[in-house]
């Protein structure tokens, strides 16, 4: 059970959140996206070892979507923010 720092509400238990997918997947433009763009957006995901940007829905809190940079090996959460934020790499 992770503890996720919601950028709006503060630290909350994982059970208040719903995983909402890969934050790296880029939605094609509705007007100009090609079939191939949509195919990649819907079906293809990277599965990196290490840092991964994820979207989580704070479904039992503020109901906002947030971006979480998590090390999927250690579960360490490096940074969180709004979906459009660029997050820290954790290197200091």
């Amino acid at each position: 059970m992770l503890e996720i720092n919601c950028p709006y509400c503060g630290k909350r238990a994982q059970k208040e959140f719903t995983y909402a997918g890969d934050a790296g997947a880029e939605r094609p433009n509705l007007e100009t996206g090609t079939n191939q763009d949509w195919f990649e957006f819907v079906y293809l995901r990277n599965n990196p070892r290490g840092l991964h940007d994820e979207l989580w829905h704070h479904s039992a809190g503020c109901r906002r979507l947030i971006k979480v940079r998590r090390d999927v090996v250690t579960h360490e959460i490096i940074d969180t923010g709004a979906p459009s934020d660029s997050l820290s790499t954790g290197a200091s």
Partner: protein
Amino acid sequence: MVDLTLSLAPGTYGAENREGPGVTVSQRHGLHILHLAGDLSDTDFPTAARHALGLPLPQLAGETRDGHGVRVLWLAPNRWLVVSGHKLETDAFGEKASVNDVGQGRSVLRLSGRSVRDLLCKGCPIDLDPQSFSAGHAAATLLGHLNVVIDCIADDVFDLYVTRSFDHFIHDWLVRAGKEFGVRISAA
């Protein structure tokens, strides 16, 4: 299937203690509740809201503000719950606000007593210790299965906002969870 009638009946359930029941649950009727959404960065909106409420909107996470018979709870960025004993006009917040009357869509339960925090800790994952969560704090969080808003009124008094259709279920849950402390469901 849940027996939806039993736990709603006023009475005392569970442990019998010399000091009386550890928790008392009563339904707060007649509240007017608005769900207010608007962009704080747009100056018209906060100004109109301040005018309508007579107090500025709380801007910190989990902050509540009181005054003029109105209590305002921060729910999320740009979202508030406005609770009052008198009716507030939904169009008083200016054109930029999105307002919904949610007074009848939520049950508001007043929980009080010496064991109230222990009871809430049975289903709520946030830190409810008095040093972290005291009067002036509210939180949208979980209680058991349910999304709720918990508003700390005083050290051992809380208001619990629950989606109306779960009213029976939350009463049933509170009775089950409260039995070890003794729980009194007060008459409406």
